[in-house]
């Protein structure tokens, strides 16, 4: 684990394939035995400059299961940021009080900057529209767990592929594992060319679709994302496509026995509730896996595992 010790995790591309696999193996250990007192005496700062209850609770429960303490804030309203303190000053101050900083911030690139000024490691819990590497790691963990391996997976990503940062990071990571990509989106929300370049550079293939039903028969993972109306320049176009990317239980007929449906959550209406009871629905377990992955990361970065 020494390679991760003391190092910030800002972008999934900061980690090699080997690093990723080490974290996933460690997370597996924590899944078997989540309550370990290894963080006893450690203080983790949790700085959420914008609210994200789900991610914050996941990190905080990861720390608490390991016997660590948390200081920090859940939104910028309650912090000195509101009084106009610079990010640099906040980070330098908080680093005096903690061994590691978990940070969520609405500005793209804020986490990289924080890692440059901070004497303690930073874990990026989302920097604007840019990166959210712990989400990516928990997605990878969920894929490996349900498919038995990470290599040679066929994955279909559905919805807003243009702005969805989780799908971009997941493509970057899965490109290390020889994945085959299937992108399902409306014309105006297609995967950006910079992301497709990553796939090409890895010598891998991707295919693009506009119909969700086209990919269901063969995909191993169906990764659903939200389509937000405000992303469409033309509200009429949104009205036209908004129901085309909703997954219902009956649509899963004919899918592979081992296929799983993933979603970064929260969902709005893109997966109907009748899917929840289908054994192929995996999004709630996926969220639980986030705790183990975050335990693994914190332990590795603090050099405790």
């Amino acid at each position, binding site marked *: 684990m020494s390679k991760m010790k003391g190092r910030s995790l800002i*972008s999934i591309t900061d980690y090699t394939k080997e690093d990723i696999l080490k974290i996933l193996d460690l997370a597996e250990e924590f899944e078997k035995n989540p309550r370990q007192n290894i963080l006893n005496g450690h203080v983790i700062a949790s700085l959420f400059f914008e609210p994200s209850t789900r991610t914050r609770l996941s990190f905080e429960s990861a720390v608490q299961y390991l016997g660590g303490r948390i200081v920090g804030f859940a939104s910028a309203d309650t912090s000195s940021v509101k009084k106009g303190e*610079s*990010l*640099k000053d906040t980070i330098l101050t908080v680093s005096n009080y903690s061994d590691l900083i978990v940070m969520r911030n*609405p*500005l*793209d*690139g*804020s986490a*990289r*900057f924080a890692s440059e000024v901070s004497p303690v490691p930073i874990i990026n819990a989302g*920097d*604007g*529209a*840019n*990166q959210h590497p712990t989400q990516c790691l928990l997605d990878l963990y969920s894929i490996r767990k349900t498919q038995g391996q990470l290599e040679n997976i066929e994955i279909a990503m559905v919805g807003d592929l243009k702005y969805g940062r989780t799908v971009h990071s997941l493509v970057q990571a899965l490109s290390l594992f020889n994945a085959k990509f299937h992108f399902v989106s409306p014309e105006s929300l297609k995967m950006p*060319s*910079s992301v497709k*370049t990553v796939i*090409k550079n890895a010598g891998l293939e991707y295919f693009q679709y506009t119909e969700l039903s086209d990919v269901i028969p063969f995909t191993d993972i169906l990764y659903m994302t939200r389509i937000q109306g405000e992303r469409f320049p033309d509200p009429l176009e949104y009205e036209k496509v908004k129901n085309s990317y909703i997954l219902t239980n009956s649509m899963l007929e004919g899918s592979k026995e081992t296929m799983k449906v993933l979603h970064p959550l929260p969902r709005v209406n893109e997966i109907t509730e009748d899917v929840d009871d289908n054994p192929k629905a995996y999004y709630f377990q996926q969220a639980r896996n986030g705790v183990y992955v975050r335990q693994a990361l914190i332990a590795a970065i603090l050099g405790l595992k």
Partner: protein
Amino acid sequence: MNNKRTELKVSAIRNGTVIDHIPTESVFHVFKILNLDKTKNQVYFGTNLDSKKYGKKGIIKISDKYFEDEEINKIALVAPKATLIEIKDYDVIRKENVQLPEYVDKIVKCFNPKCVTNNQNVTTSFKVTRDHKGNMKLYCKYCEKTMSKENIEFV
């Protein structure tokens, strides 16, 4: 060296640096990038000069100054075909094309309004890359967005 005289249309300098083949519209960008608006050296420049190769061109001459490669290569962002000529006692002692640097720090603004560099006191830093068509791109070290040449704005 007779051709030197014809090439250097704006008055010749004894010692210093000549930057030739600058697109006319980029002359003032080059000024900015090299901080020539703040230098104490003598600076001559010309715009809309005739060029066999490029139609119209700009040229800048700075007396008694030689640049580090790293510094001069930044101008390749706005003048990729510029020629760097170093003069000593009216003789050309070095002549070569500018090269795109690997990194561009400080001088360019990130085009992403939500980038931390546009909202906090952070120095910009870009990696120079090329897309599959060979077009130059700048990749922001912070927000990880890639910007094309049309979006380049100087700080």
